[in-house]
């Protein structure tokens, strides 16, 4: 049987069936819902572009807080996280196997602290009273006199969200890049040095990065998608949606706010579509930066 399996359908059918049922159809429904008024109980009624018009012209929270917050967050965490992932992967590839394994496991481990673990660590470390670790430390060395409300104060929330996200940014992109670097044929370097390559910078730009373009691209797309789709963190840290004075409100929180707190699913879908367009255009730009043109 296996000897005669040549048709491409053998390969893509299972994926296409599951992908269509559980991803494509729901996404299409979501896009259709974005043109309706839908409170999740009554049948949706079509209202055309009204959700979008409302979002872009009347939603002050969206324009004043959500959009700037999302961009600020994504444009810091995305590039910095990506750059850190590459540098760390590059360095790790140049130390012996055993040490590399241990360090890589530790560096990747934050990406595994989903849900409950995330909340427990950070809310305790940044807790607003004097039993919070950071507050206790700062009080001890005399930098502050009163404990700071790190998680409920709009002044700190965004910064803490960025730090926590950077802490966890060595994710799947990092793993892919590490595998990519390790896969580069060593003779390529030797040949390049014979041909007159002079220093490590040239080596990185002329050999390392071009030889691992697929992984660089993957890492970049993951960074874009990952940072724009973040949402849980601000809510988990501050314990509220909306976050205090919308200081940590990101697009995904705005979607949750309307979809699951106010039950305006049509409007929430419209925000998701806007987010999709945003991620898509930024990914396309990334693609043209790293993509193979074949």
């Amino acid at each position: 049987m296996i000897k005669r399996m040549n048709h491409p359908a053998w390969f893509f059918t299972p994926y296409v069936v599951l992908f269509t049922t559980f991803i494509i159809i729901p996404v299409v429904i979501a896009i259709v819902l974005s043109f309706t008024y839908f409170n999740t109980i009554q049948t949706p009624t079509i209202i055309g572009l009204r959700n979008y018009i409302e979002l872009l012209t009347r939603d002050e929270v969206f324009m004043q807080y959500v959009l700037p917050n999302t961009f600020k967050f994504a444009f810091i965490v995305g590039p910095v996280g990506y750059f850190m992932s590459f540098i760390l992967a590059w360095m790790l590839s140049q130390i012996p196997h055993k040490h590399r394994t241990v360090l890589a496991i530790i560096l990747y481990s934050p990406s595994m602290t989903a849900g409950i673990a995330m909340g427990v660590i950070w809310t305790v470390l940044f807790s607003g009273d004097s039993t919070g670790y950071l507050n206790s430390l700062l009080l001890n060395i005399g930098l502050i006199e009163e404990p700071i409300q790190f998680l409920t104060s709009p002044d700190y929330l965004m910064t803490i969200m960025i730090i926590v996200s950077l802490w966890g940014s060595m994710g799947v992109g990092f793993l892919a890049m590490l595998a990519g670097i390790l896969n580069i044929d060593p003779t390529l370097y030797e040949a390049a040095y014979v041909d007159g390559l002079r220093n490590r910078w040239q080596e990185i730009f002329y050999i390392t990065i071009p030889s691992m373009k697929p992984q660089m691209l993957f890492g970049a797309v993951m960074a874009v998608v990952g940072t724009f789709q973040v949402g849980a963190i601000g809510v988990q840290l501050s314990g509220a949606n909306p976050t205090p004075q919308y200081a940590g409100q990101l697009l995904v929180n705005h979607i949750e706010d309307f979809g699951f707190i106010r039950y305006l699913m049509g409007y929430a879908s419209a925000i998701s579509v806007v987010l999709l367009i945003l991620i898509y255009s930024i990914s396309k730009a990334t693609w043209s930066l790293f993509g193979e043109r074949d």
Partner: protein
Amino acid sequence: MASFQGMKINPSRYHKSQLKFYFFLFPMTLFVALPIIFIISHAFKPSNELFAYPPKFFVRMPTFDNFRDLFFLASESGIPFSRYLFNSLLVTTIGVFLSVLITSLAAYSLSKLKFKGKKTLFEINNLALMFVPIAVTIPRYLTISRIGLIDNYMVLVLPLIAMPVGLFLVKQFIDQTPNELIESAKIDGASEMQIFLKIIIPIVAPALATVGILSFQLIWNDTIGSTLYVNDESLKTLAFYFSTLAARTGNTVAGQGIMAAASLISFLPNIIIFIFLQGKVMNTMAHSGIK
């Protein structure tokens, strides 16, 4: 080549020229590791240490009280802890296996086979990757209830098997396999499926291991399936049970300890699986005949 001064990828032993890397890597790793050490240490603290002032980072008198409270709480609610654990293990095992297999099969067809609509499929896949999961929660629920999968064990797995990220990743790796390898196998009379099973799978093992890790985390940590698609309490998973803990225990002193214990238990399997599979992820393909 004694004078070669360049990149030493995957060096076989330590050399003092690597010191500069350690100099940077160690502080970074320490910074990353602290919160992780904290999860472990916190879970073993007795209640007087959990609320100590000034707070103590490391546990002084480690105890299993928090774990005992956690198990006790579960049995109190009617469903034994082991039932949630069993559900999670079963669902995750099936899910990871199917996800890796189905995703890599599709990736091979997208990378090396010719068929109509191939480019479109890849494009749609990447578009789907960019759509926030939260936005499809309700539409996905509507789809699932229409097919009649509500309260079916498989509903905890099926929606999570097709992983656009995984497809993208594996395809990127298969793209790097030289066509000559496939061509020569074809000349020897191998079918596409044989090529996939015998040649491609071993070569892209690192990517498959990565997809395995991702899919493990996705399914193991998923709470949406248990929350929305099954009503039968005995079919729900550990991640779901943990997500309800805060509401169950309230902000009590015992509650804090239970949360700390639960966070360690939910974190551990992820890291164990990762340690188990990382060898594959970081393995070089130098010996696999590419390049």
